[in-house]
Every structure is written in structure tokens, then in C-alpha cells.
């Protein structure tokens, strides 16, 4: 696809500036504050709750328990078919340490916490299950009585002739891999302010939740408010990375207390709440995976078996395995694959999604196998990748399961990464370092970063279909003074959606993006939109704006054409207005057009309404249903971005310390809208990937007690743990999106852990260490070296 001359798309536009109102900044008259009593037991029956002392404390206005939740709310929405019931407050049983048992609304948070300390709960502890392999066994204590066992779901999906490909392989590379549970931990915790009017039954919600115009009606059902009376305001969000999707528990608790107290109620999680009871922890996986290879290094097939420890509830289902299907075979030509998943429930906080949403772990699995294949076959790991890449002339490419890769040039991305890193020079430097007794490692990962999720991923694993819509909408207006206003309906996560829409309007209409005003609208006035997540917003917003722009331009052309007695097709938009192509004297500024449209009805074409406003709902641009026999899942994540990372590390075998000497990352996310903004997403994503690779684990002991319940134990990287990143770009535009854009928000975290594992293994190659687990804490590294030495 030829590169077009673009004025604003692709430029480094500084983000729009201003003051943000975050959820905790919301103050309403009479507003109360919430504190939550959480279970100290991982598994127990709730025998008795006595809230009388709490209710009697001056300053307390409402107290709620699970009994109230059963009466005042419905179970939380779940993206799964299994009968795993969950209320916003524990009903009858608690199933993980930190599960909410009671909630108090009081004049301030201090008083609310005082009241929580006065609630007496009698628990009858039950046996605790923390090991998913134990939990799976028949006869293990069940977390949920309606389920046959704690193995909430298991299935194998197979595409192509896996058996034949494995039988015909010269060698089968096998690895068992461990990807530990992590947590998004944005600096702003999750929260909501709820205000209820009992006469109109209207519930106003200010919350950093997401998907408000997607699952808003499900939330309404949860809090027992008519869907048309639920109004959610999209907020500035202090980071989410997936952890703030839905937030049914938080909105459930705040709404109950609002109804009960008759006053607005704010519930902001504190940091401990977020660490031990987040609605969205990340995947916790045991992989047993095999790669069938020919002796010349060509990959034939891959078989992935994964046990995923979901924690106590199944709220977000196995979508993180659905989306993994989009890129199980990565950038490599393979004719078949098999994927077996076992979703197990244990007495831990539940999984949801965290940036990468399962494909981060999937990339780790695949790239470890690729490195292992290179090693076992004695083939250079750069060469083995080249040999297996899907060639640039093979796109759109259909994968064995039916997903399509829209475009790509994997050799070019790899070449750029090797060039930027000075790969040959790095190897020389490494040899010198080794001679000095230093352990320097060069990592490599060439991996996919699927973007713009298709909702079919939520229900692939079932035989019956589910939702197929994942849209995004904007409103676009041109006022009587010629000023453009874009209205958005989804929250701001920090990924600069305002800058994206302003640049797109600038591009479409030939104006400076800084002239564009951006507003937000609440959910009662909104159009459909799934909001940020799954690396979709840049594609979906550019699509929505382009769609709205087309509608607006259609009207503007007819106004201008009528003015100049020209044909609407001859009107072009540039330089702050509209003009007849080839006749610059026949032009109208946007101010002229605006005034005309709002004030001069009799100058408009007959039958035309006054005003200049367009709204557009942009649906996923390329989504198809699975075939009836499910042998072809259709296109569900076709905007396939890709990246190559080359981290260079030094490892200290005696202490397990890892430091970065360099980090090169080349990403191909199609047409880049805002390079600066994309670079920020990449450096931020890689930093989270460094966290996953070396520092972060939501750990539990064998008795189900959380071990990382503060920021002193759950470790986010600081500026001293991460290097300066060298970021490169390749652009293979998507044929399916406006401007050829793909999503790039998750890629850093999806690729870095695999690359860093590769680097550490390479550093410790003199010992013969195999890295098959993340995070690589200092102790784990020291143990790997010692084991290899024996």
C-alpha cells in the first residue's frame, strides 16, 4: 500500500494539556466514604456477622453485608457460561483472603475504617486449596458447589493435522514453563462514586471503570437499576492496563451503600485492596509445550497444554486463551497447532486481564521453544527464525485456526533490530566480557502483538456463539464559529486518545490539531463503545472519526457546492476550509460554513437541516464468524502487529542480580499516528515487561495467605531498574483499517519477558542454564546456576 502524503497523521504532536479530574477528586455534597472488611481466611463459611457496633459508631450512615448484597444486587456479570456465582460482597462463603465481606459508608474514610474494625465475623474455616493440580483432582474440596469440580473448564482445540505433523517431525522440542501471577497495579486504584435518586431510580456513577457503553446494561442489572437509568461518567483514569474493566464489585458496593444511606457514596480502593482483591489479576500458568521441527530447523507444528490457575472466581472466563489463539504460531509458518487449556479454581484472588491478556505468556512459551529448538538443533537462533518467518508477500495470511494476519514484514523488523543493536559487535563484546569472567547475555524475541480484539475471543471455547460486537463511537461537530468539537464516550487511560482524535480531525479537514476541542459524554447520552483495552483505541478512534468526518464532509460539500453552484464531488477540504477543486477563489472557511449552517437556513440546499453534527459508530473492521464445524474460527484479531526485541544484560551468578546494558526494540504497528505517543506506550510496556521478567509476582503461601500485600513486596520497577530504550519502527500498513493503523499499546509487555528470559539464559549459557520461569528473581537465578553446576 503506497504511503500517502499526510499532514498530521504520523507527526509528533504534543499531547493536549489540562487539569485532570480523577475519580477520587470527585466531591459531591453530603458524600460518604467507604471502607471494606475483607476476609482473613482463604476459604471459610461465614457463620455470623454482627454489625451492631459498627452501625452505632457516630458518623456511620450505612453498613452492608453479603445478605444485603443478595437482596439488593444480582450476581456480577461474567464472561463465562459456567455457573460460578459471585456477588460484590461474599455470600455464605469466602473463597480468598481479601474477599469483601462487609462495607461501611461514613463521613470520612477514617471513621469508615474505625467502623470496619467494629464488625464481628465468625468464620468456620474450610480446607484450603492453592495448588491447581491438587485442586483439579476429583475429591478435592470444591470452591463452588454447583460446579462438578474445581476444574471449571477444559478443552482441546486442534487445527490442521497435528498428529501427522508431529509424527513426521525429526525432533520434538519439549519444555515445561512457568508464568507466575502478576498484577497491573496502576498508581491510581479502582473506585467509584455513586449517587442514587430513589424517585427516578436514576443511578449516577463516576468511576474509572471501562466498557461503560458496552457492558453498562450488565452493570445496571447487577446493581438492580433499570439500564436506561444508569448513567456512568467516563473519567480520567490513572492507568488501568486492563485492571479496571467492568469493576462490578466496586460499583456494586458503592451503589448499595448509596441506596441504603440516601447519600452519594465514594468507594476508592486503597493500595492493599488493589493488591489482594483486584478484580483483574493476570494469568498464572503452567505450560507443557512441544514444538515439532525438521532437522533443517523448519517448524511443523506446536502443541500447547496449559493449566491456568484462575483463583476463586471465573468472572472473565477464558478469554485470555481465546485471544492467545490469534497468534499461537507467532510469526512462523506452521501448518497445524493444538491447544489444550485447563482452567482451575483455587483459593486466591481472581484473574481478569493485564496488558497482554494471555498472549504475553503465549509469546514466552513460543519463543522459549524457538530458542530451545535452535540450541538442540545447533542452528543459530537468528537464522532459525528467518527460516520460519512468513514471507512478506504472503499477506493477508491465514493461520491454521482461521485468524488472519493482515500485513507484516518480519524479516525487515528483525533486520532493523539487528542493525540498531549492532548484533555482531554485541557478540564480540560478549566474548570479551566472558573472557573477563563477566556474564553478559544477548536476548532475542521476535513475537506478535495482536491488536483490536474481536469479541468472538470471549466465547471461542464454547460450542455456542456469543457476542460479536466491539465498536467505538465519536461525535463530531463544527460550530457556528468554525470550531471543531469531538465528543468521546470512553474513558481516558493515558494513551492519548484526545491527541489521536485531534490529529485525525486535523488530517481529515486540513486544520491544526490544536484547534480541535475534545469533550466527553456520559453513558446516558453515549453511543456504543467498548473503550480502551486490547490495543484497540487508536484503530477504533481513527475509524470512528474518519466515519464521522465522511458524514460531515458530505454535508459540508453540499453546502459549499450549493454556494458556488458546483458539484459536491468537486469540493476539497484543506487549509482551514472547503473550496472548489482548482478554483481557490471559490472557497469558504470553516467559520463561513459554520455560520451558514447554523444561521442562514435559506442559503442551504433545499431540504437540508440546520446544524453540522455527525455521529459515527465504527465496528470492528474485520471480524468474521467461525465456521459451523469450528475448524475455522474466522478472523478475530487480524490487525497483527509485531516486534523484535534485543535486550543486553549482565547477570551476577553469585547474587542473581540482573542489570541492563542496552535494550533495543523494533515494533511494526502499521501506520503510526503519533510517534511520540507510541514510543511512550512501548517504553511503558517494556518496563512492565521488565517487571514481569524480574520483579513482579502476586505471591501466595501454601495456606493461601498473600505474600505481596504492599508495595514493599509487590515490586514495580523504578527509573533505576530500567535502561534507556532504543526504539525503532517499521510500518506495514493494515489493509483493513483507516490509514492502515494497527494497535501498539500492549506490545512492549507482550514481548519483553520472552526477550529478557532469552537474554538471561544466554548470559548463563556457560553454565548450561535453561530459563523456563518468570519472574527471574535473584534467588531463582542463583538456584538455576547452582543446579546447572551440579
Amino acid at each position, binding site marked *: 500500500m503506497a504511503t500517502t502524503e499526510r499532514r498530521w497523521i504520523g507527526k509528533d504532536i504534543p499531547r493536549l494539556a489540562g487539569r485532570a479530574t480523577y475519580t477520587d477528586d470527585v466531591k459531591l455534597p453530603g458524600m460518604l466514604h467507604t471502607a471494606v472488611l475483607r476476609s482473613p481466611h482463604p476459604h471459610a463459611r461465614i457463620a455470623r456477622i454482627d454489625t451492631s457496633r459498627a452501625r452505632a459508631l457516630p458518623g456511620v450512615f450505612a453498613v452492608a453485608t453479603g445478605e444485603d448484597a443478595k437482596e439488593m444486587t444480582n450476581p456480577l456479570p461474567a464472561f463465562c457460561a459456567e455457573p460460578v456465582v459471585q456477588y460484590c460482597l461474599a455470600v455464605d462463603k469466602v473463597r480468598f483472603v481479601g474477599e469483601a465481606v462487609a462495607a461501611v459508608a461514613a463521613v470520612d474514610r477514617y471513621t469508615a475504617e474505625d467502623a470496619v474494625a467494629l464488625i464481628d465475623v465468625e468464620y468456620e474455616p474450610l480446607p484450603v486449596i492453592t495448588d491447581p493440580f491438587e485442586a483439579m483432582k476429583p475429591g478435592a474440596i470444591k470452591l463452588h458447589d454447583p460446579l462438578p469440580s474445581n476444574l471449571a473448564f477444559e478443552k482441546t482445540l486442534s487445527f490442521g493435522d497435528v498428529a501427522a505433523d508431529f509424527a513426521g517431525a525429526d525432533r520434538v522440542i519439549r519444555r515445561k514453563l512457568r508464568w507466575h501471577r502478576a498484577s497491573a497495579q496502576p498508581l491510581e486504584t479502582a473506585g467509584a462514586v455513586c449517587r442514587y435518586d430513589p424517585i427516578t431510580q436514576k443511578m449516577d456513577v463516576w468511576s474509572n471503570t471501562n466498557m461503560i457503553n458496552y457492558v453498562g446494561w450488565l452493570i445496571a442489572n447487577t446493581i438492580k437499576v433499570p439500564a436506561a437509568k444508569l448513567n456512568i461518567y467516563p473519567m480520567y483514569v490513572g492507568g488501568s492496563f486492563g485492571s479496571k474493566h467492568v469493576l462490578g464489585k466496586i460499583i456494586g458496593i458503592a451503589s448499595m451503600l448509596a441506596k441504603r444511606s440516601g447519600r452519594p457514596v465514594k468507594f476508592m480502593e486503597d*493500595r*492493599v485492596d488493589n493488591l489482594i482483591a483486584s478484580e483483574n489479576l493476570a494469568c498464572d500458568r503452567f505450560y507443557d509445550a512441544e514444538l515439532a521441527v525438521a532437522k533443517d530447523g523448519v517448524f511443523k507444528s506446536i502443541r500447547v497444554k496449559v493449566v491456568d490457575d484462575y483463583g476463586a472466581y471465573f468472572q472473565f472466563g477464558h478469554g485470555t486463551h481465546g485471544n492467545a489463539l490469534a497468534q499461537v504460531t507467532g510469526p512462523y509458518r506452521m501448518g497445524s497447532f493444538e491447544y489444550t487449556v485447563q482452567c482451575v479454581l483455587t483459593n486466591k484472588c481472581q484473574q481478569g486481564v493485564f496488558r497482554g491478556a494471555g498472549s504475553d505468556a503465549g509469546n514466552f512459551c513460543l519463543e522459549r521453544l524457538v530458542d530451545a529448538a535452535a540450541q538442540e538443533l545447533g542452528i543459530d537462533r537468528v537464522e532459525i527464525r528467518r527460516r520460519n518467518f512468513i514471507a512478506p508477500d504472503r499477506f493477508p495470511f491465514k493461520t491454521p485456526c482461521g485468524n488472519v494476519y493482515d500485513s507484516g514484514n518480519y524479516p525487515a523488523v528483525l533486520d532493523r533490530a539487528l542493525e540498531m543493536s549492532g548484533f555482531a559487535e554485541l557478540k564480540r563484546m560478549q566474548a570479551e566480557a566472558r573472557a573477563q569472567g563477566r556474564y553478559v547475555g544477548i536476548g532475542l524475541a521476535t513475537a506478535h502483538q495482536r491488536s483490536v480484539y474481536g469479541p468472538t475471543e470471549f466465547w471461542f471455547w464454547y460450542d455456542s456463539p456469543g457476542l460479536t460486537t466491539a465498536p467505538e463511537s465519536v461525535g463530531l461537530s463544527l460550530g457556528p464559529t468554525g470550531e471543531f468539537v469531538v465528543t468521546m464516550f470512553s474513558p481516558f487511560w493515558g494513551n492519548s486518545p484526545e491527541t489521536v482524535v485531534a490529529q485525525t480531525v486535523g488530517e481529515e479537514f486540513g486544520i491544526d490539531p490544536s484547534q480541535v476541542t475534545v469533550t466527553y459524554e456520559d453513558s446516558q447520552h453515549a453511543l456504543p463503545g467498548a473503550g480502551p483495552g486490547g490495543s484497540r483505541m487508536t484503530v477504533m478512534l481513527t475509524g470512528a472519526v474518519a466515519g464521522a468526518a465522511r458524514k460531515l464532509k458530505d454535508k459540508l460539500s453540499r453546502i459549499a457546492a450549493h454556494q458556488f453552484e458546483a458539484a459536491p464531488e468537486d469540493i476539497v477540504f484543506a487549509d482551514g476550509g472547503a473550496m472548489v477543486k482548482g478554483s481557490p477563489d471559490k472557497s469558504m472557511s470553516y467559520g463561513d460554513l459554520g455560520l451558514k449552517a447554523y444561521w442562514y437556513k435559506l442559503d442551504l440546499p433545499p431540504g437540508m437541516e440546520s446544524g453540522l453534527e455527525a455521529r459515527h459508530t465504527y465496528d470492528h473492521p474485520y471480524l468474521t464468524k467461525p465456521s459451523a464445524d469450528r475448524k475455522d474460527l474466522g478472523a478475530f484479531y487480524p490487525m497483527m502487529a509485531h516486534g523484535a526485541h534485543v535486550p543486553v544484560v549482565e547477570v551476577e551468578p553469585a547474587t542473581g542480580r540482573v542489570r541492563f546494558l542496552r535494550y533495543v526494540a523494533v515494533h511494526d504497528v502499521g501506520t503510526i499516528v503519533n510517534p511520540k505517543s507510541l514510543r511512550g506506550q512501548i517504553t511503558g510496556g517494556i518496563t512492565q515487561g521488565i517487571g514481569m521478567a524480574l520483579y513482579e509476582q502476586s505471591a501466595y503461601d501454601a495456606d493461601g495467605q498473600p505474600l505481596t500485600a504492599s508495595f514493599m513486596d509487590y*515490586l514495580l520497577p523504578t527509573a533505576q531498574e530500567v535502561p534507556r530504550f532504543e526504539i525503532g519502527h517499521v510500518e506495514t500498513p493494515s489493509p483493513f483499517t483507516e490509514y492502515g493503523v494497527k494497535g501498539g499499546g500492549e506490545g512492549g509487555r507482550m514481548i519483553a519477558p520472552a526477550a529478557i528470559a532469552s537474554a538471561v539464559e544466554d548470559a548463563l549459557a556457560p553454565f548450561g542454564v535453561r530459563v523456563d520461569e518468570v519472574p527471574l528473581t535473584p534467588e531463582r537465578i*542463583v538456584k538455576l546456576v547452582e543446579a546447572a553446576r551440579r
Partner: protein
Amino acid sequence: MKPPRFDYLAPRTLDEALAHLHHHGDQAKILAGGQSLIPMLNFRLAHPGVVVDVNRLTDLAYVRQHDGGVAVGALTRQHAVERSELVRARVPVVAEACRFIGHAPIRHRGTFGGNLAHADPASELPAVMVALEAEMAVASRAGSRAIPAGQFFIGPLTTALQPGEMLTEIRIPAAPPRSGGAFVEMARRAGDFALVGVAALVTLDEAGQCARARIALCGVGPTPVRARAAEDALVGQAPTTAVLDEAADRAAAATSPPSDVHGSAEFRRKLARHFARQALAAAIQRSGGR
């Protein structure tokens, strides 16, 4: 995460403070920099009946010469100790250790005395005071007494301070000529609590042999660990590789480290050996030895 209720007193003089402490006994908790106490209050791990805020006792913030060494007032902010010319000249290992305490904003408020009185087993300063054989000056309404650092730290978060007593000054002797000191530490991230920290101070004689050695470790026991057997391995010996290795082995053997999510006891012991070796080598180099 908000503190529970407590009664609050903000004395303006030391006498006033001591009177409050005497009156309220074990119900009273001293609030100085707050960098250790306030997180505990926010987590509701501490429920003091009375908080005695000593931040008005600015007379207790100073760094002075004392007998060739330095005397540090208990309320001196860690940042001021780290930047003090006197400390850097006379007991540089103290300034070196201060740089590992959290980050600058924490050191702006955290006090030298408060850190010592809090006695976190992973804290740097207690180990440094033990290695330097500092003396803790303690006051109460009844009078004052001096407690050697080696007897001050009794258990995790427990010192020899009795109810009614307050740390007022820390007296740190200077090292003899031909001495070198070093503090090294490993933490998971910059500014975190030490997994293991080692303070080493060695003095050489004219022949280049080790005349005196002091080694103390943090993070590897309920209190700072004074590795006397390791010191014995050095004294009277030339600081050869073999001697330093032996000393480091003995230092590790003296530890009884905790196990937690950041490292098992066994791992910490290995780190203790590694960093004791490193600290000793650095101390010897700084003493003018090889």
C-alpha cells in the same frame, strides 16, 4: 489505610517530652520523622494510645565534634547526616550507609535517632552503629544513661529503651589512623530494604597487617549481627585472599536470616558471605592496604 485514633501531644522542650513519656508509660509512642511509624499506623499495625510528637525539639538536631568522632542529635534528619562535612570527614561509612536509606524525600523527614529506635532488622544504621561501637545517649525523667550500640538492639523492632525513655544523642567514635570502612548492601530495587547489608571497618598496623576489625550485618537476624568470629579471623593477619575468604565464611555462619518472599534464609546467607567479602575488600583498600 488511615491511622486509628490516638491522643496527641506535641511537647516543645525535652523536659516536657520526658514528662509525657513518664506519665503515659507504654501507652506512648514517639513520633519523629514518621517514615517508619506512620506506615504502621496507616496499616493499623500499631495502635498507640498516645503519640508524642517530638518534631518541635529542634535542639536535638545537630552534628557536632565529640572526642575526635561525632555526636549526632537524635532528631537530626538522615539527609543532614548524609550531607554533613563532619560526618563525611570523620565517620564516612555513616554517610555511605545513609545513601541506602530509601530515597531523598524519606531522608528529608526520617531522623537518625528514629531509625535506630525503630530497630528494623533490615535497617542499615543499626548495623553501622554496632560496627562502629557507637554509644546511645538515653534520657528519661529520672536522668540519663549511655547504652553501647552492641547492647541497644535486643530483637526485631525492640531496643533497650524502657517506657519513659527517649534516645537523645548518638556518639560515634572516630577510627584510628590507617583505618578504612565500607558499607555495602543488596536490595531488590534501588532504595528498598536490604536483603543483606554489611558494615566493615578495619585498621591496619604499620606492617600492613590487620590490627582491628569490626563487622556487622543487617537483614540476616533479629538484630544487627556482629560477626566476632569473622573479626578474629582477620586480626593479626595479613589481609590475603584466603584470610578474607575465611572471614567472609565466618560472617555468613554467624547469621540467622529470615525467609520471606524476597529470599530464603539460605539465599540470604549466601549473600551475606558474598557481601561480607566485598565490604572487607573495600574497607581494606580504603585503609591504605591492598
